[in-house]
């Protein structure tokens, strides 16, 4: 895999000189400021594009690895037919524009404030009415910190449903790539957990820090090593991210009968 293929087009043209680097940094900074400014208002005009929304919440660290987003979008554009919005939509539960983007990504590595009753009500409604939230634990720890906060949140959101392991033959593991393992920066669980309502996953929980597997520095180098599986594990994380997004847009499309034989044949060949 060549790094250049995964970068946004403009970055491929960048020349490696100090002066130009500074100019480009300014441009990026200005663009980021503009984008941040625009994101604050959660503009609702996205046409029929896929919008990657990141959840802002109180306490904790909601805005980890900001460079990951661009990498994800780049891969979507390069390898799939999805038309994504090029700007990330940072949004709080109380923002009016929440119900314009049915995909929500939530990440963090420290405990966060409990969601209040209104936030819980909105989030539950969001998920029951067609939305999907991906909660990505970046802490690497079990039962403490972010994990505890997230699990408590899920229990409060859906007291009648339990977080359950997503089975290997679920549509999410074959929505684009055929996956037999889950990736991430650090493997804590070799599975994803989720809540399914009316045959649809409404919440996906990963403890493997998928988001940071995408993070690069300004030179284009990966920021973090993937443990223990190295670059293969990073690739699995990237494929899993694409699959999750594809699942949010196509549902259990890959479970339709027309795909069954093809997929089974391919799975036999791979494994």
């Amino acid at each position, binding site marked *: *895999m060549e790094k250049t*293929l995964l970068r946004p087009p403009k970055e491929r043209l960048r020349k490696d000189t100090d002066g130009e680097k500074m100019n480009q940094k300014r441009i990026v900074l200005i663009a980021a400021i503009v984008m941040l400014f625009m994101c604050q208002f959660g503009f*609702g*005009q*996205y*046409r*029929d594009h*896929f919008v990657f929304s990141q959840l802002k919440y109180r306490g904790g660290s909601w805005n980890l690895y900001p460079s990951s987003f661009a990498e994800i979008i780049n891969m979507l554009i*390069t*390898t*799939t*037919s*999805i*038309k994504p919005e090029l700007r990330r939509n940072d949004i709080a539960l109380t923002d009016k524009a*929440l*119900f*314009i983007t*049915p995909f929500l990504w939530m990440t963090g590595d420290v405990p966060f404030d409990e969601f209040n009753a209104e936030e819980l009500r*909105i989030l539950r*409604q*969001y998920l*029951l*009415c*067609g*939305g999907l939230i991906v909660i990505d634990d970046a802490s690497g720890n079990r039962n403490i910190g972010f994990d505890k906060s997230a699990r408590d949140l899920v229990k409060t959101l859906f007291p009648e449903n339990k977080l359950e392991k997503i089975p290997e033959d679920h549509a999410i593991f*074959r*929505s*684009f*790539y*055929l996956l037999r393992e889950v990736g991430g920066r650090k493997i804590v669980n070799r599975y994803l957990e989720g809540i399914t309502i*009316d*045959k*649809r996953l409404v919440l996906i929980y990963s403890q493997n820090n998928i988001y940071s597997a995408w993070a690069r520095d300004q030179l284009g180098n990966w920021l973090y090593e993937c443990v223990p599986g190295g670059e293969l594990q990073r*690739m699995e994380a990237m*494929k899993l991210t694409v699959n999750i997004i*594809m699942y*949010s*847009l*196509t*549902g*259990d*499309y*890959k479970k*339709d009968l*027309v*795909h069954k034989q*093809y*997929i089974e044949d*391919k799975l036999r*060949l*791979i494994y």
Partner: protein
Amino acid sequence: MVLQPIKWWIIIVAMSCMAWIIVYSFRKLDRNRNVLTILRAIVYILFLFVLLQPSKIIYEKSKDKPAIAFLADTSASMKISDPALRFKYVTEIFGKEKTSLFNKILDRLKGEYNPIVFTFSDNCQRTGVETLLKANPEGNSTDIGMALADVEKELKGQLLSGIVLISDGANNGNLSPVEIAGRLKAPVYTIGVGDPGKYTDLQITSLKTSDFAFKNTPINIDVEISAYGFSGKTVPVLLKSEDTIIQTKQVQIGSPAESKKVTFIFTPKRVGTFKYTLLIPPYANEVSLKNNAKSFTLQVVRDKIRVMYICGQPSWEYSFLRNILKNDPTLDFISFNILRNAENISLVPENQLSLIPFPTTEIFTTDIFNFDLLVFENFCYSRFNISYQHLLNIKKFVAEYGGAFLMLGGDNSFGKGGYKGTPVEDILPVEMSGPGEEKISIGTFRLRVNQLNHPIVQLSNDPKENKNIWDAMPELDSCNELSKPKPGAVVLGVHPFARNAYGNIPVLSVWDYGKGRVMSMASNTTWRWSFQLAAEGKGNYYYNRFWSQAIRWLIKAEDMKLVHLSSEKRAYIKGEEIKLNIKVFDKYYRENNNAKVRIAVVNPSGKKIELGLASQIPNAGGQYESEYEGEMEGTYKFTAVAYKDTENLGKDELACEVAVPSIELDNMGLNEPLLKAISAASGGKYFHVSKINSEEIVFSGASNGSLVVGRRVSVWNNVFVYLFLIFFLTAEWYIRRKSGML
């Protein structure tokens, strides 16, 4: 001795009560106690005797002459000529000539027997010879078993020495004549009329199929035919729909009298109620042509609405629509979503991708004709080797096959998708620009609905509420800037402020094209209606209802109705009650228990009759019933109209066939085996009418010895009983008086 049927314990209780009364009454007497006790006891015993009404049966030998019953078949099958008229043989048998069989038998019997003549077909009647000779055989059935049983009953108490049965044996009654003949204790001589060798007939003996079928699903029609006198020939059996021959089967006949089974497998292509006929073309010399055909009514219903959805790229419009369509039990939903384009690169080998080839040829040459609705969302046909011919097939699918087509907007739809100048443009209700000219109107907008009464956009039956719903509907996001509606198209919704040279951009348009219907929706962001209404706590009801109504309107679905009329079966016999069941739903498709349902019927002569209100069935949510008896042969068309208060919920129609039973026309050949079996079971003999030997028709007296007749004589009802009663009562009175007790 025979007593009244009073239970024994009642008698014991009564006697105990009597004894107690006697003891109690006389317990304080010093004198004459025993005498009075005895007298009272005798009186009570006499009362009990009278209550029990004893009688005795006296058996005496009968002084009547033994009877001989002559049974003549007067059913419609006796009118067959094979080659001579069958009933003519009957008249010859009973003719006035001395040489007639009837007279020959009577002469031989020398007046020692009592001849009694009966005619029978679907009933049995005692008659005289003169009447028989003038009879016209037109009975609706031949029930030999019932005739024998009726003769036995009629002649009970008389000595029945024998029966002479003249018939063609074409029995179609329910009772077994062989069994009844076996218990008669008198010989039955059977005379068969008809000539198997000269009997030629082809008939549809039986027909089995379902009352209803699903469109595009094959059904079996099982037919049995009988052939007499067609040995070695091949006979065609036709299946017709109205006047059109649908299928023909050739049946090879091997023997002179043979039954064969044939199965037709037929796939109805249209929804509705249709009359089908199975027919054997008539041949010369057939004794009857009425049994060459049998008809049936078949109701063809839509099984599931088959929807094929082709999406040019993953989108939330696809995701939300898929969620409701896939979970709709009335839909069979199949989709293809283009997850990767040719210009995309793959980071892994192909076998690690879950992608499948897009089956262009299969879909656009054959598969679409098996669907009811084809949906294109943002689908660029030119990327997938879809040729002009394929697009022409889409047009044919709609125009000729009555299919439905829906195009949703996007960068690869309408003019931007290169559909201008293609057969798909012909079927769309709107005009469009070329790919380089058509733009996307970017920005959110609230659809301005024009035709609020159209069933697709009628989200409430209350016009005011409907308008309010649309006025508050969440915004859509961007749309293709279509040109203008075509003549005849109905524009249901426009962009409120984006305009072109022809006016506001038509966003939602529909029309009928050929036999089918087409809808264009210039935006593929209706999912926002669902998601944002949910945010307002209104759920996704209106979104679901919009698409449900759109699909059902497009495919002209019968089940869009809120009223469903059905009956137990479609074919009835004249005089049989037709039971109707009506299911009524409310506008939310929930069972409606508060409706008024009016039923009307148009009879075969075309007269409309109002049957009044149907009765509600208790504890059967939203169901009502009514009944009607068809007095005429033919097709009856029922209509049910349901109201709730002043709101008309809809109507439904149903057709039923009423026919006169024609079992007599089935199996009209001379049934010698049956006639032989009847005579064998009773100790008689069978003769063919051409070879009767009257000397062999013999009778004896009662086969079980002297016939005795039982006579019942009452014992209690005589004057001596009453005299004894008076005497003992008087005696008791006298003694009590003398004793100073009175």
